């Protein structure tokens, strides 16, 4: 009996790790690829390896203080035309959802991370600092609403985006205007 127990104790970790590996591999390679613009990058270097942390900038999501925990992607993959907050399962073909068990918890639709090698992280750092570029993260979205970021790339800003970015600086500040904070609350 002790022989059987020893054999089980030796096989269990190997079988368990191998099963986890197989499951991770299968999950990673399944799903539809979508491209999501990102902003606010933060390269990190933890024990778990180099990774870059970013915020998703979902197209068409109205700015609001309330963070939805589910979104519906609309468009033809990989291009997202817009997202809506009506992500009820039967009606939405491509839902993405934040899960409480994810590393960012219910913030999972707003922040994400992508593991990178050291050299790639260094190369990326300079690209991240370039204000004339837009970061795009490719995610694999699955039918159950789970998704995994799989790669990051950059494209130059379009003229319209540049104009939008530079616009507020052209407005002269008047001492008689209400403070900017109140302006935005109106």
């Amino acid at each position: 009996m002790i022989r059987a127990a020893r054999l089980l104790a030796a096989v269990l970790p190997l079988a368990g790790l191998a099963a986890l590996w197989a499951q991770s591999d299968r999950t990673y390679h399944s799903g539809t690829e979508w491209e999501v613009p990102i902003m606010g990058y933060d390269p990190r270097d933890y024990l778990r390896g180099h990774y870059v942390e970013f915020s998703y900038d979902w197209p068409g999501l109205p700015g609001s203080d309330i963070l939805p925990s589910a979104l519906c992607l609309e468009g033809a993959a990989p291009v997202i035309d817009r997202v809506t907050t009506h992500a009820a399962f039967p009606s939405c073909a491509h839902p993405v959802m934040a899960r409480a068990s994810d590393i960012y918890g219910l913030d999972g639709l707003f922040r994400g991370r992508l593991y990178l090698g050291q050299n790639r992280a260094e190369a990326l750092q300079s690209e991240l600092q370039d204000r004339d570029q837009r970061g795009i993260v490719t995610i694999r979205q699955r039918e159950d609403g789970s998704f995994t970021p799989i790669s990051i790339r950059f494209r130059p800003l379009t003229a319209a985006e540049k104009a939008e970015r530079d616009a507020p600086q052209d407005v002269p500040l008047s001492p008689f205007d209400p403070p900017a904070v109140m302006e935005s609350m109106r």
Partner: protein
Amino acid sequence: MSARRIAHWHEAGIIDAATRDRLLAYEDAHARPLLLWAVWGIGALAIGLGFVSVVAANWENIPGLVRLGVHLALIAGLVGLVFFREDRLVEGSPWSVEALVFVTAALGLTFFGHLGQVYQTSSPLWQPLAVWLALFAPLLLLTGRSWPTALAVVGGAVWTAWEYASAMTGNGVPRNPGTFWLAWLGAAVALPVTLALAGGWMRARSLRPDFWRRIEQLALTYAVALASLACAVASGGGFGDSSLLAGTPSLACGVVIALAGIAHFAVRPGVSGQMAAAIITEAGITIAAAEWANDRIVPAALLFFVLWAGIAAAALRAHWRGVFQLAVGVIAFRLVILSFELAADLLTSGFGLILSGLMILGVAWVAVRVSKRFAPDAEPDT
């Protein structure tokens, strides 16, 4: 080196030829060529570090599948070595198996991080920790021989329990504020203490009593640490600050530990076992009672004194010399802190400073006297 000395002593007429030869024979048999070992060690370390840095520099050029494959093969090789060669390795040195098993378990834990890196998966830390514990605890429990593997088991359980409890109460707010849920979280934090039962039960029955003794000791230490922590939190008025530090979870935690302590009385007969059971039970009661003393200086200190006086009494009874001295030292230290808690303004005047200094010296003197006068003779069985 010693051979020349011995020859000198013989020439000086201190030892005769027979003694010299016996001394030389003894030195030969017990030679410890430290310098040679050091050179070997440095060489091995340099090769190891070089290997690690070569792999690290080319990390991303190695495909993920290859990396994971090598990692898993390494674990498989070590597990195979332990499985097929354990008896032979133990004959050489029990520590070699201990080190092998520990390294295998550590490699297993890093495999989870490695998977996350290759497949961009992320999950709260308690999940991989719990899976790791489930996969590797049988191996550790069946082949562990000393404290490193015992520490891996008990430490892994404690780490998992705390990660779980804090993940479930993110930012101090529980996912589910129900009483039952809070009680469950408190019980989960207490669960690693039940390993003491396994240790106490197995140490008389297993061929590896040292391992099970360490398991029991570590679990008991965790119970005492939790109880001391509860007293410290009560002393600082911390109960109610977050959902985990509140009445229901601490009561549940204390009750589970006290029940484990009561069961321990039955599990391990003998003075040492009964005293260990008494300490665990007492720690559980202290945790359950800690909220009662919240933000009250004297009751919180009293609770702490009762806990550690009980430990000192148990140590006296079971002849644990080191534990007794530790308990006396801890009580003396807490007394000094209590004096400052009660009269914080002592520190603001010169006279007060002198007074508090004298008091600290007095407490230290009494503690040393008590420790020397009453400390029991050490017994090998702790």
